[in-house]
Structures are given as structure tokens and as C-alpha cells.
């Protein structure tokens, strides 16, 4: 089995190379088959690995030496255990569905760009697999950078639109800030422990001083902030909607943004050692969850709503990690991957049917024309809202309970965020699929259900969203913690011991049901309407304008930086240019003068020779005096 693991990232890499190099000569059909097929093959190998892990535990496969200096070694090794096998399944499984969907969604692109798209997509999956499979932080960092690069390429896929390019740049720069933290954490680890391999680091973790552990984990968390879009580095993610919709599904559901969660779950040994970091993670996660949920309430772009919803859900995951419920955080990654991929692909289907329209105030009543999209999307909404016995219910309730065990205050705030989630999701659903159509007559005529390659992934994901939570229902509903048991070799399941936990769980359950009914009725009344005004005033406008965070960043970071750069360009650069050009001009001038000495007259050459010899003799005879003189001067 050890020799199979390298196949998992190899297939997407080959797909990337073939599609990237031959994109001009391959037909669209061939590109689609290579692009999706490579991921399907990876998925099959992942399933084999997964069953292996379930039966016999994990293993580390050493491929070759990556860095090898004296007794400092960083091998290029892959680690397959419960955690990475699970992520492999999520990445390749959902990745494959998204590839399949893309073959139809991107079909209007010219063949060359179609090939470029699939090449990037495969490279993205490859980087993500590298990130998850690496057996040390350095390999993880390679994948970490890889997904950053690919997100840049994919967000700016339609590079002829300058706004999209800015969005891509923004994502790249924000990620880079986080990456610096990650890199510093690796260096700190290498300095203190001399190794970056997971098993060795976790064995030696106890020997680190508390200050070191806190610094390292906080720096890792900075990396996670960038990649997983937490406050203050979250603003790139909503802008990343500039990319094609399946890309949004890939980046925001199955891969990239979950990298931060994976990294912290992987380093749970380190994080458990630092209470301060855990508190920071929990608070930042919760703050992000609430802030982005409030923003999502008043967004009118279907993808923006989903984007802020993603940020909010990521906040929930970090909250779970912060309160020590690592398995619960990973569980939510999985269920979130199901329903968020479903909703993004559903949104893609809607946009496809609407002829590129993304404004939900111009939609409405789509349920009649797009039945499959509608009902799968509704399932996604129910799952994210925590409708009883869907996947989102299982994971979100678990997060809330774990939070309650940790701190009741955080629990109530998290419940508030969950309520907001319900509201904005029902609003989105009602505005898009119910009520009356608000678009143009032409659009109404054009409405149609998407073709099979797009609806099949929707149906599969809908089924997963519906039943995916069954592997770990709360105990009081007869559930069994299969998921925690499965992950226990890597991530110890936390045992929250609180009195009358069942009371809390029943209260939560009851509260959820009541909230669902109330929110549904209210949404039906306010949003399933014929005419909808998408302009806001007062506090609503502040929310619709995203708390003006982008403007704030622009004012306190971007503008001063631009001013500084302008000053450096006009002031300092001229000065430095003067020095450099002056040196060149001096050499040029003096050599033009010296060149006159070379007259071609043999006599003058001989004269110089004789004179030089005489000078050398004089220097030789008087070297004592000359050395003394020089010493006196200097």
C-alpha cells in the first residue's frame, strides 16, 4: 500500500501537464475527460487508502530526501492517517463532482481557455493534496503556497476584466500575509526542535517552553487566518467570487479555505498546550462568524451571500477548534463541504439559467423552471440552517454543545450567529426560487434547467448533505460517534462533561425547530414577493456595504502604502539612480580620457615601461617609509 500513495497527487499533476501543454490541440471533450478523469482516479486510490487506514491505521511513505544537511533532515514524505485520508476523500470526491460540473458550465469558453481552466483546476487539486498528504510542515507549506498560487490564477481566470485581476491580486496578497506567519512558525519550530516532521514535533512538544508554544501556534494561526479567511484577513474571499462559479465551489467548499482547519487539527497537540492561543482562535472564529453573518444579511449578489456564509461557517469551525473540539471542527469541514459545494454549484446553475445574472433582486420564482436546482438548493439551505437530522444539524449542534461546555457566553453568541445564518439563507432561498419573477422578459423566456453533467453533481451532493450527518448524530437521538472514533488515532476526541447536557441539547433542538419555523414564515412573508427593492438605508446600508471594512483597509493600509511607494519612486529612486548612473558616467568619461594614452607609438609604450620600473624600484627601496607614512595617515 505504501507505494500507492504517490499516485493520489500524481494523477492531477499529469492532468495539469497534459491539459496545460496541449490545450491548443486537444478537443474540449478530451480536455474534460482528462481533467475530471485524473481526479476520479485519485478518488479511487483515496478510497483504497481510506479503507486501508480504517482497517490498519496509518503509515508514512518516504519518497525522497528533500533537504538533507548534516543531521538536519526534511524528507519528502507523505503521511496517510485518519485525518489526511478523510481530507483526501473530501478533496478528490467533491473535487471530481466540481470538475464534472465544470465540463458543462464552462462549455462556452473557447477550447484554449477551456484547457487552461482545467489545467489550473487540476494543479489546484494537486497542491491541495500535497498540503494534506505532507508528513511535515515544509511539504504542507509547498501545498499551502500552491493553492495560494492556483487561487490567484483561477480567481483571475477571466483576466480581460481588470476588476477580476484586482480581486485575484487581493486574494494573493492577503494570503501572502498569512503565509509569512506560517513560514515564521516553521522556522521557529526548526530552531527550537530541529525538525518539522509531525510525529517528531508532537513527541517533542512537551519540551517547548510555554512562550514558544504560544508564539508558534499563534503564528500558525496567522497562516490559517489568511488561508481560511478569518478576521482581519477575510476580505479576499468575497472578492474571490470573480472566478468562475465552480471555482468558488472548489475554493470555498472542498479545498483551500479548509486548509487552515486541517493545519490546526493536525497540530492539535501543540494547540492543546497553549490556552492563550485557543482562546484567541475561539474568539476570532466567533467574531468572524458573527461579523460575516451580519454582512450576508443584506447582500444582493447570490455569490456574495454564499461567500460571506462561507466565511461565517469557517468562523464556526475555528470556534470548535478553539474550544478544543478538534474532531467537531473537522466534522463541520466535511458537512460544510457537502452543502456549500452544493449551494455554490446550485448558484452556478441559477446564474447559467439567468444568462449570467447574479443579482437576486432580479430573480424570483425560479422553482417552476429549475426543479432539480431548486430542490437540491433547498436541501443545502436546510442543512446549513441546521434542520434536524441533516448533516449541518449534526455538526453545528455539536459545535454549539462543545462551546457551551467551554463557556456559556460564547455559546449564546454562537447561537446568535447560527440564527443569522438561518435568516440570510432563507432570505436568499426565497428571493431566488419563490415569489414572482423580477427579471426581464427575455431572461424569463430563456430560463431552463441545466444539463445532466450539472444536475448529477447537485443530486449527489444533496444526498450527502441530507444524510452525511448520520455518521455522528448526537447521542440522545441514538447516534454513535463513529466519526470521533475514526479520527481518534490522530485527533483525540474531547469529552465534555457538563451536568444535564441533555437539557441543553433538548433546549438547543427545540430552539432550532422554533427558530426554523419562525424564520421560514417571516422569510416567506417578506422575501417570497413579486417586487423587491434591493436598496437599503441606515444601518442596513452599513451592513450591505460590508461594515466599510474594505474602505477602512484602503484608508489605513493601501493608501499610506501607495503614498510611501510614490515617495520612494519619486524621491529615493532618483537619488539611488543618480549614484548608479553617476558611477557609470564617471567610468565612461575617465576611460575616454585614459584611452588617449594608447597612441600606438612603440616608443611611448617603452617609455611607460621604463618609468614604471623606475617607480617600482623607488617604492621597493623606500617601502618602510611609505608603509609608515600610510599608517600615520589612516
Amino acid at each position: 500500500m505504501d507505494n500507492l500513495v504517490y499516485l493520489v497527487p500524481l494523477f492531477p499533476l499529469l492532468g495539469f501537464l497534459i491539459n496545460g501543454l496541449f490545450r491548443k490541440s486537444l478537443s474540449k471533450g478530451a480536455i474534460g475527460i482528462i481533467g475530471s478523469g485524473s481526479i476520479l482516479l485519485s478518488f479511487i486510490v483515496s478510497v483504497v487508502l481510506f479503507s486501508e487506514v480504517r482497517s490498519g491505521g496509518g503509515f508514512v511513505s518516504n519518497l525522497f530526501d528533500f533537504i538533507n544537511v548534516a543531521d538536519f533532515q526534511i524528507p519528502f514524505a507523505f503521511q496517510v492517517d485518519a485525518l489526511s485520508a478523510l481530507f483526501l476523500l473530501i478533496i478528490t470526491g467533491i473535487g471530481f463532482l466540481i470538475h464534472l460540473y465544470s465540463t458543462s458550465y464552462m462549455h462556452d469558453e473557447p477550447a484554449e481557455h477551456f484547457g487552461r481552466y482545467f489545467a489550473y483546476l487540476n494543479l489546484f487539486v494537486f497542491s491541495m493534496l500535497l498540503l494534506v498528504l505532507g508528513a511535515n510542515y515544509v511539504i504542507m507549506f509547498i501545498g499551502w503556497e500552491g493553492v495560494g498560487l492556483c487561487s490567484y490564477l483561477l480567481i483571475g481566470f477571466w483576466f480581460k476584466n481588470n476588476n477580476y485581476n484586482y480581486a485575484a491580486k487581493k486574494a494573493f496578497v492577503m494570503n501572502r500575509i498569512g503565509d509569512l506567519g506560517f513560514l515564521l512558525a516553521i522556522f521557529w519550530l526548526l530552531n527550537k526542535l530541529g525538525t518539522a516532521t509531525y510525529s517528531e514535533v508532537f513527541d517533542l512538544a512537551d519540551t517547548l517552553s510555554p512562550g514558544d508554544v504560544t508564539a508558534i501556534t499563534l503564528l500558525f494561526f496567522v497562516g490559517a487566518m489568511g488561508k481560511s479567511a478569518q478576521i482581519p484577513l477575510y476580505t479576499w474571499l468575497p472578492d474571490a467570487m470573480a472566478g468562475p462559479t465552480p471555482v468558488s465551489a472548489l475554493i470555498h467548499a472542498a479545498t483551500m479555505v479548509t486548509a487552515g482547519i486541517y493545519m490546526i487539527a493536525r497540530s492539535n497537540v501543540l494547540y492543546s498546550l497553549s490556552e492563550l492561543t485557543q482562546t484567541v482562535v475561539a474568539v476570532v472564529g466567533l467574531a468572524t462568524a458573527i461579523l460575516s453573518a451580519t454582512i450576508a444579511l443584506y447582500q444582493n449578489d447570490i455569490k456574495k451571500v454564499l461567500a460571506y456564509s462561507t466565511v461565517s461557517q469557517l468562523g464556526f469551525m475555528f470556534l470548535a477548534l478553539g474550544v478544543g473540539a478538534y474532531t467537531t471542527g473537522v466534522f463541520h469541514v466535511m458537512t460544510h463541504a457537502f452543502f456549500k459545494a452544493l449551494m455554490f454549484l446550485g448558484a452556478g446553475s441559477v446564474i447559467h439559467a439567468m444568462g449570467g445574472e447574479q443579482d437576486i433582486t432580479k430573480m424570483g420564482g425560479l422553482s417552476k423552471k429549475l426543479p432539480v436546482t431548486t430542490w437540491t438548493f433547498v436541501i443545502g439551505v436546510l442543512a446549513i440552517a441546521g434542520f434536524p437530522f441533516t448533516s449541518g444539524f449534526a455538526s453545528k449542534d455539536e459545535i454549539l454543545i462543545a462551546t457551551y461546555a467551554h463557556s456559556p457566553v460564547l455559546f449564546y453568541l454562537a447561537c446568535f450567529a447560527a440564527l443569522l445564518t438561518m435568516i440570510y439563507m432563507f432570505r436568499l432561498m426565497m428571493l431566488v426560487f419563490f415569489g414572482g419573477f423580477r427579471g426581464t422578459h427575455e431572461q424569463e423566456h430563456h430560463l431552463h434547467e441545466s444539463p445532466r453533467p450539472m444536475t448529477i453533481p447537485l443530486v449527489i451532493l444533496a444526498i450527502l448533505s441530507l444524510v452525511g450527518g448520520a455518521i455522528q448524530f448526537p447521542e440522545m437521538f441514538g447516534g454513535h460517534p463513529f466519526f470521533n472514533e475514526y479520527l481518534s488515532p490522530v485527533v483525540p476526541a474531547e469529552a465534555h462533561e457538563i451536568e444535564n447536557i441533555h437539557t441543553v441539547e433538548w433546549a438547543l433542538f427545540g430552539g432550532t425547530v422554533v427558530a426554523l419555523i419562525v424564520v421560514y414564515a417571516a422569510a416567506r412573508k417578506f422575501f417570497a414577493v413579486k417586487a423587491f427593492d434591493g436598496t437599503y438605508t441606515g444601518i442596513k446600508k452599513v451592513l450591505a456595504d460590508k461594515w466599510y471594512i474594505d474602505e477602512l483597509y484602503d484608508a489605513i493600509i493601501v493608501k499610506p502604502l501607495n503614498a510611501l511607494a510614490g515617495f520612494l519612486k519619486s524621491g529615493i529612486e532618483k537619488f539611488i539612480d543618480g549614484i548608479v548612473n553617476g558611477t557609470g558616467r564617471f567610468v565612461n568619461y575617465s576611460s575616454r580620457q585614459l584611452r588617449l594614452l594608447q597612441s600606438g607609438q612603440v616608443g611611448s609604450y617603452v617609455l611607460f615601461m621604463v618609468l614604471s620600473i623606475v617607480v617600482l624600484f623607488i617604492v621597493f627601496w623606500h617601502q618602510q617609509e611609505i608603509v609608515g607614512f600610510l599608517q600615520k595617515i589612516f
Partner: protein
Amino acid sequence: MSIQYYVALAACLFCIGVAGVLTRRNAIIIFMCIELMLNAVNLMLVAFSKMSPAVAAVNSSMGAAGTDAQLFVFFIMVVAAAEVSVGLAIIVMMYRNIHSVDINFLNRLKN
């Protein structure tokens, strides 16, 4: 006789040679001046080897004081003779090409 006389004579010969090389333009004269410098050096060698007190002390019993350098001088003369033949041949070729032995015509190194 004191060594100073020999040194002074050799220095004079050498300086005359240098002055000739620097001032004259006729290639043959310059060549002769170079030979003059060479012979000044030869003279020094012979004189030093004959008059060196250390060598004389070691070799006086054998009656062959300081012959090493004098042997060198023979070699130098042989090499100089070879050199002269090559040098004169070059000067002949030069005359054939530019119908002059004035070295100021040889300014092609310029540029």
C-alpha cells in the same frame, strides 16, 4: 680593483642602452641598444662572480673562484646570438613590407 668600478661601468652601459631605446627610431639602432643593456648585465654577472668574497673564500683553495656565473654568461651570449638572428630577420621582413626600419611606422596597435 674595487667592485664599484665595474658596477658603475655596467650602470653607464645600461643607461646608454635605455636612452638609446627611448630616443632612437631606427629599429637596428634600438636593437643594438638592447644588446648593450644585455651586455651590461653580463658584465655585472662576471664581475660579481669573480669578486664575491664568500665564493672566493670557499673556492680559493681550488683556484677556480666564481666560475659559475661566468658559465651563465656564455649561455646568455649563445641565446643572445640566437635572438639577434631572429630579431634581424624580423627587421628584414619589416623592411620588405614597409620599405623602412623606422619604428614610428609600426603604430597599428592603436585602435
